[in-house]
């Protein structure tokens, strides 16, 4: 997983729970990197899982809630760091462009990036988005958080219906997003 995700996670924990919490969770985990992350590096995604679990243990907040909150935080950060990808007029258009545009750009820079894949389609009346998440890393909650961040950014009220279709090693989740009038 790309270092930027780890850096942002550490920054988020520091901003919301404080310096001490960062120190505590890193000490509680057995991290190959020692908790030293550089945005341009690549690290084992299980390190993030370990830290989230440790954070959950320290704070009493459930892991899925933490991962989702991190997703929303990450959306805000991506928006700040890479505004060029967010010039769409609706969140559905943006989400629909991730697989074919954003991830293509990521792969140009990082050919070895293990990205989740998305099959998306927008209904004709533009009120429904089908968004299928495929990943061996099981971060569908992160995807939910990112989507919620996007809906908030475009100031839209959207309900997400989650249908877990995982049958093998890869997590497959179908999100049906419906725009409320």
């Amino acid at each position, binding site marked *: 997983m790309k270092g930027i995700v780890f*850096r942002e996670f550490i920054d988020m924990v520091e*901003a*919301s729970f*404080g310096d001490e919490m960062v*120190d505590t969770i890193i000490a509680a985990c057995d991290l190959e990197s020692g908790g*030293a*992350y550089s945005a341009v590096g690549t690290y084992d995604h299980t390190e993030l899982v370990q830290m989230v679990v440790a954070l959950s243990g320290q704070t009493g*907040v459930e892991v899925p809630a*933490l991962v989702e*909150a991190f997703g929303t935080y990450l959306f805000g950060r991506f928006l700040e760091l890479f505004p060029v990808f967010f010039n769409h007029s609706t969140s559905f258009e943006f989400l629909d462009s991730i697989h074919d545009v954003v991830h293509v750009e990521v792969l140009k820079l990082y050919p070895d990036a293990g990205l989740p894949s998305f099959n998306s389609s927008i209904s004709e009346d533009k009120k429904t988005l089908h968004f299928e998440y495929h990943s061996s890393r099981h971060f569908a909650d992160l995807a939910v958080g990112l989507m919620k961040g996007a809906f908030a950014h475009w100031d839209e009220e959207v309900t997400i219906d989650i249908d877990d279709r995982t049958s093998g090693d890869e997590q497959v989740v179908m999100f049906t997003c419906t725009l409320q009038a």
Partner: protein
Amino acid sequence: MDIFELAKQAKLNKKSTEGEDKDTIIQRLERKVEREKKARITAEQTIEESSRRLYLSNEALNSANKQLENTVLELNDTMAKLTSAEVRSQATKATLVVALILFIISEFAIEPELEATIENTLFLQVAKIAIFSLLIPFEIIASRVIESGLTESDEINIKMYRTLLESAYDDGIITDMERTILTSSASQLGLSPQKAAAIEEQVKLEMELSTS
């Protein structure tokens, strides 16, 4: 829910460090500095590796470019040879026709006349040779005229250059590489830059018309 909301709920909001033991704070900050330093070193190594990879792939591209240029020059050379071979073969055919006509004239029109008027065999032979020799310059002149006529008409060269242009404009743009090929081809084909530019304008217009 927002992470800050979650933190508030967990009653673990960012604590003030006041009242904390100074040594504890220092130790924690030292660990943080250590992590930052390690991250910086990783970043620097990554950048070193990336720039090395970039340099190497640039080198590979450069050498591939050189090879391509050489291939282009060879191709141009072959093309020029083929063109001149084509011109020569046409000229040879034309010359042969001229020679045949001259042969028929001398054999069937002039010689029977000579044989009828000249009695002396030796004198007859000399006259025949003289007439034959007189015909040679005609043959040479005829073949020169035909050859230069073919070369000056440039038809083959223009056709070849047009074919090149059409394939270069196929994707709508002329890359640097394509430009190099075109320029060197034009000079190999004996087309002046003005002539080449005129042909290019024409091809461009035709291509635009066919696409729009």
